[in-house]
């Protein structure tokens, strides 16, 4: 009976289990951020431009006819125009399993992923390990419209800065976050894709302010300041808060042939701690390539 069972299993094992595809993607672009230091105070906000570059490379392993595993190395970097302490390079390894629930363009797809990596920042106090796991469900409704919902857990494991208040920790860049979101893509024209998305972040974020505003932060957030450290990048302190962030984004992407596209994106983030509100606008223009 056991033998029979094994025989059956062997017979139903897909003949297709093997490495089947490559992933090679790259992008470069230009970004404007109007609140690089994520300050709650208008007089502290610093804006800057940056050059961006990113790449992904990996392989796809076919597990069954409907399920694929991908192993990908990811590279992401930015070079700020003025605030070089915010230059950064991220290197990550990511594993994803993608399952398609059947055959055809409109069946839903589930992707489960996990990644780990390291981020080097110009201001080395901010160097951190980055961990992430999550899943998303994608569904195409028509050849022109598809949408996805996702959940993501992120954990940033950074060092500690110099202590400001002896009774408060200085591990500002140890941050935990949960994200849920949805996004939709609409093909406006054969080559023109309009995307819009919303993400709700629940967890922690950091903010930098000048010495003059530190008092106001403690006044209004009190115990919600989980950690604070001296940070000279913006001439004062960086602190970690608990709160949530609403993020809305819109992208207009123009495809050039099969492998290239130009992408214009805009993102608005509004973080809310107990009292303070942190607003950031980010605009990007990039060129994307996929082999």
């Amino acid at each position, binding site marked *: 009976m056991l033998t029979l069972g094994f025989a059956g299993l062997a017979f139903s094992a897909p003949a297709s289990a093997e490495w089947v595809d490559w992933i090679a*993607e790259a992008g470069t672009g230009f970004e404007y951020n109007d609140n690089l230091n994520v300050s709650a105070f208008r007089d502290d906000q610093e804006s800057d431009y940056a050059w961006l570059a990113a790449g992904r490379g990996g392989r796809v392993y*076919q597990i069954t006819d409907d399920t694929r595993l991908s192993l990908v190395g990811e590279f992401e970097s930015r070079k700020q125009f003025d605030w070089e302490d915010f230059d950064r390079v991220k290197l990550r390894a990511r594993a994803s399993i993608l399952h*398609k629930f059947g055959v055809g363009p409109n069946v839903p797809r589930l992707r489960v992923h996990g990644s780990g990596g390291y981020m080097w920042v110009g201001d080395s106090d901010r160097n951190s390990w980055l961990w992430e796991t999550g899943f998303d469900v994608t569904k195409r409704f028509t*050849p022109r419209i598809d949408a996805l919902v996702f959940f993501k857990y992120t954990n940033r494991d950074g060092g500690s800065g110099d202590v400001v208040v002896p009774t408060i920790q200085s591990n500002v860049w140890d941050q935990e976050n949960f994200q849920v979101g949805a996004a939709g893509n609409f093909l406006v024209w054969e080559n023109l894709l309009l*995307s819009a998305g919303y993400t709700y972040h629940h967890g922690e974020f950091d903010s930098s302010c000048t010495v003059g505003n530190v008092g106001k932060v403690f006044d209004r957030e009190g115990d919600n300041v989980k950690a604070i450290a001296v940070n000279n990048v913006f001439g004062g302190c960086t602190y970690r808060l608990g709160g949530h962030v609403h993020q809305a984004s819109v*992208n207009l992407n123009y495809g*050039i042939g099969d492998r290239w596209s130009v992408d214009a994106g805009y993102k608005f983030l509004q973080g809310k701690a107990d009292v303070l509100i942190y607003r950031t606008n980010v605009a990007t223009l990039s060129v994307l390539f996929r082999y």
Partner: protein
Amino acid sequence: MLRIAFSGALAILLASAASADLTVTVRNGSGSPVADAVVYLADGGGRSSTQTNIDQIDKEYVPYVTAVQKGTKINFPNHDRIRHHVYSFSEAKTFEIPLYKGTPAEPILFDKPGVVVLGCNIHDWMKAYVFVADTPHFAVTDSSGTARIAGASGGQVSVWHPRMAGQAPAKAASGGSVDLVIEEKRTWRPRRAPSAGGATYR
């Protein structure tokens, strides 16, 4: 001498009989030539070829439109170094060739007239059409919008195209040629170029 002249004349006659093709041009409402249109005669006996190929090259089906006579077998050679998963949900032929490389062992028999839409379960943008005709007299237009139906000189000519809006009435050919006009509508297929988000099967 006479014999040579006679055989020469016969050769010319035979050649002109063999080249008795019906030339069909297809244009759209604004007068531009329409490629990939299937033009076919209403009826007629005989048999066209019984087997053909639709290739997969650089994650696309080639050609985009294939016309065959009912009863033709089509094979789907994959020339890429990756796998494709061919499928059709069309009424005229529902089938699936799960992930494979190279040439499948068995071709697929198209035994029912109609239009078959092909997709790939890995690459959403891959799309192709098979027009299964009831007649051996058909052809597909080239980039100049022209097709030649071999061995025919007249008859009622019909047209089908993936972007055709409604059904264009058949038109009688005269003098070995006919011009057809179709109304085109917009059709969509998922975009292949990269985007920041998007639903790629990766």
